[in-house]
């Protein structure tokens, strides 16, 4: 049997794409922003009713809201029913990896050099790695790159169909419209070409398909409302301007500066489309940390082109004597390692750190939720915000949370009251009474001030404690 001829260039791309796959496979499901999607999907599939009213919190019970992610909720539940969390995590890794494969083809078209395309892909990976947690945004990553690819290949007819699906899966479909808008603007050469451009018709059709969602045009109002509310909630750092003091922000600014330096060294000029794309997505990324991933994805081909010009100037390193057999062995070993990273097998992978072998991260309040679920006295729970999603999934249907990561659906008063109680404000007891809270599930890391107060209060009794948090039950006062 002849061994496949694997050159060093193939090795580069296999290693990069494989690293992406392996990394995403081994990210445990976090407690913050996944579980409530699964619960919503379960509800819709079992009851055959669309969720457009809140049924999980007691502070917003029965209040209407726009459920942007209904299709992703259904997908998650179907996958969960078919193969549990293992299957969801695996598909998630495939989605992200597929995005990077498409991105590789786009980068390679700009540079013709596999190594440089791989290097630009690596930069993208480093910038976007913190956005690879399991949540509907991963569908947007795939659709975003797919839109880039379809626009580049001028397969315009497929884009409205993509946008149709995207609109019902995740709110970042707006970015797809922005991509088409940029193409249209850059295709304008004179007044006549404004209306002759096929991109204009793609844009109009795509916009019209975005109205094919349960909320119609109301979707847009809600999308912008989500953004403005989320920005005001200061502890959700992904909605803040990237800071050089945190890892993603530091990498983002380093990438911006690197691009500047590369442009200087290569003496390359960005064409009109690349410049407009750069400016728009830079502004988006500067406006919030969670948009850095879109900047990274859209700039990948630009980085590839500029890096290509830098190395063309200085001369590309000679690939030297290729050792296909050695390359084959490396690929084999790497593939074996990646196989050991898939969710079903990673728990036994000795080369992974302990935290990465877990399916669910160890900040998830599993035991706390189990305890609360077994306690039939508990109905209205004042919870740590980051546990809201898991509680929605794990608790009984008659048990409701105070607040959860769907923060945009909560009125400002609820959010303010949550912060006041959590911060140990003087009004904490009266607020808990006002909301008729009968149990507290408090995080030792995030709600320490409140824990001290509750411990000192005669109205609350500690009924459970573990390394993550404490559960207190309200004491009913006996009369007479």
């Amino acid at each position, binding site marked *: 049997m002849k061994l496949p001829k694997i050159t060093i260039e193939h090795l580069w791309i296999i290693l990069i794409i494989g690293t992406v796959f392996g990394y995403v496979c081994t990210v445990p499901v976090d407690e913050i922003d996944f579980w409530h999607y699964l619960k919503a999907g379960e509800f819709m599939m079992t009851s055959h009713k669309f969720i457009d009213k809140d049924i999980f919190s007691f502070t917003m019970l029965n209040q209407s809201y726009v459920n942007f992610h209904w299709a992703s909720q259904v997908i998650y539940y179907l996958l969960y029913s078919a193969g549990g969390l293992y299957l969801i995590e695996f598909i998630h890794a495939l989605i992200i990896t597929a995005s990077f494969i498409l991105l590789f083809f786009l980068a390679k078209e700009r540079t013709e050099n596999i190594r440089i395309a791989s290097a630009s892909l690596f930069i993208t990976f480093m910038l976007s790695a913190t956005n690879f947690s399991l949540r509907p945004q991963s569908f947007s990553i795939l659709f975003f790159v797919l839109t880039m690819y379809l626009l580049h290949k001028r397969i315009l007819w497929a884009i409205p169909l993509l946008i149709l699906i995207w609109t019902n899966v995740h709110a970042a479909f707006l970015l797809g419209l922005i991509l088409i808008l940029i193409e249209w603007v850059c295709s304008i050469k004179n007044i006549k070409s404004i209306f002759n451009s096929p991109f204009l018709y793609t844009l109009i059709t795509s916009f019209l398909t975005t109205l094919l969602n349960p909320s119609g045009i109301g979707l847009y109002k809600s999308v912008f409302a989500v953004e403005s509310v989320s920005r005001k909630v200061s502890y959700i750092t992904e909605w803040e*301007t990237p800071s050089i*003091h945190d890892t993603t922000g530091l990498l983002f600014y380093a990438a911006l500066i690197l691009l*500047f330096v590369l*442009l200087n060294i290569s003496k390359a000029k960005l064409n009109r489309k690349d410049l407009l794309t750069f400016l728009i997505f830079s502004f988006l990324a500067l406006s919030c940390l969670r948009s850095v991933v879109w900047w990274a994805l859209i700039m990948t081909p630009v980085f590839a082109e500029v890096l290509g010009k830098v190395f063309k100037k200085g001369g590309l390193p000679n690939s030297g004597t290729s050792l296909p057999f050695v390359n084959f062995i490396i690929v084999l070993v790497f593939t074996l390692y990646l196989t050991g990273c898939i969710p079903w097998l990673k728990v036994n992978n000795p080369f992974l750190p302990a935290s990465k072998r877990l399916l669910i991260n160890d900040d998830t309040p599993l035991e706390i939720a189990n305890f609360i679920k077994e306690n039939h006295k508990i109905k209205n729970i004042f919870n740590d915000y980051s546990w809201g999603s898991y509680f929605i999934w794990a608790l009984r249907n008659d048990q409701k949370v105070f607040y959860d990561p769907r923060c945009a659906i909560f009125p400002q008063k609820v959010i303010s009251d949550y912060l006041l109680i959590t911060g*140990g404000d*003087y009004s904490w007891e009266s607020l808990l009474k006002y909301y008729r809270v009968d149990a507290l599930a408090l995080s030792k890391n995030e709600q320490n001030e409140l824990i001290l107060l509750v411990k000192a209060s005669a109205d609350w009794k500690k009924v459970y404690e573990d390394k993550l948090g404490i559960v207190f039950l309200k004491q009913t006062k006996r009369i007479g």
Partner: protein
Amino acid sequence: MKIKEFKIEYLWAFVVLGMCFAYVSSMPVDQYDFWHYIKTGNITWHTHKIIDKEIFTFTAFNKSYINLHWASQLYYYFFYSVGGIPLLAFMHALIITGSFLLVFKLCLDYSKNMRIAAIATFISIVLSVTNFALRPQEFSILFFALTLFLLKKEKYYFIPLLFLLWVNIHGAFVTGLILVTVEVVGSIKFAKKFEISTRLLTLLILCFITTLFTPWGLKLYPAIFNIESQNLSNLVTEWFSPSLHTWAGLIFFINFLSFFILKNFSTKNWNRTDILTFIVFAVLALRSQRAIIWWAIATAPILALHLNSVILNLKIKNNSSEENLLLNYIFALILALYIVFCLPWLKPYNIFLPKSKHLLIALDTPCKLADKLNTISSAHHIFNNFSWGSYFMWSLKDNQKIFISPWLSVFPKKTIHDYLLISNGNAFWEKVLRDYDIDTLALGKEEQGRLLTLVNNSPNWVKIYEDEIGVIFKKTEL
């Protein structure tokens, strides 16, 4: 100057620098970060000893610290004695305008175009405007601009002398060292062998050595780095990274991204020093908003150079040959008149200034609160609004100590945490106040609203004074 020489280009420069002077001159002195310098200058002047222990607060009493600004404190006290706040405000306006005059000159040298130089200087001023408060940083602004100017003119021999003065006036002398380092690194060549400018390297070494000529020597450096980390608490927002959601941050990021546009359309190459300047000062500015001013000044000449190149490429014609020069003079005269009426002594009569700018001292300075506190003989441990710390340090009696002042680096983390706990109306507020043996509260209505509500309803405190900005409470006798 003959009428025919005062072209519109000169008017551009005059307008930019004149408005800078007028703006700074008409700024009232704020309460945050100035008054304690006059007080410490006063004590130093009369005792002939540099203050190196905290003496104004009871939470950090007698704690040693590095007094970076001792020379500026003496300066402030001296000129305050001579001419009061108006003289200090006037000198401050001259210092800031002088700094940007240097920036303008550099921009002119780079671009050879007065209008472009004026635009670049204007952008630099707009970026820096949040840093124009009357405080020792003004000297750093001047020295930074002067260092940059001297470096570009290659008049190196003055620079170490400048550092000798700078290091005893304000902690931002470090940015001057960074400027020199950038020049040194920019001079490195790798062509056939490693080459570096020995003149610049010698300059850097000399500048570093002169920075040791302070009462603290090398200990100065850890103190400066410590200040930055301590100030990343919730109280001092100027130490936070810039955000696109604030005006200052938005303008900074627009300016930052504009360099990419200029790079794309300019025909001028970037030399190594310019690239390094861009990178290093961008990183500093991204670390904290208060460093945006160094970015603004250091990159202004580069901005002017490339802006000029872009304008030339666009072939925008300059139609100055048919201008009415007399009109230029009239306009300049009117502007000059306006500027004169922005001087601290005359600004109360300037009808074109908003009323808040007629004042010498900002409206939210707790003057009346301080006067009232001075009459309370039993007020020894005062829990104060953080913003008022500086003014209270200046105006209260020696035996009246406050809880917290702007000099955050001297306070333990627990004190800052407790300040926030009490100010935000935490349920433990009374216990914490008792722990610190506080007898008087001077609370800001805007900043400490929740605490005010609690204190008003508490039987342990009685209100003894109230005005538009704050309230004073005294502990009730048990």
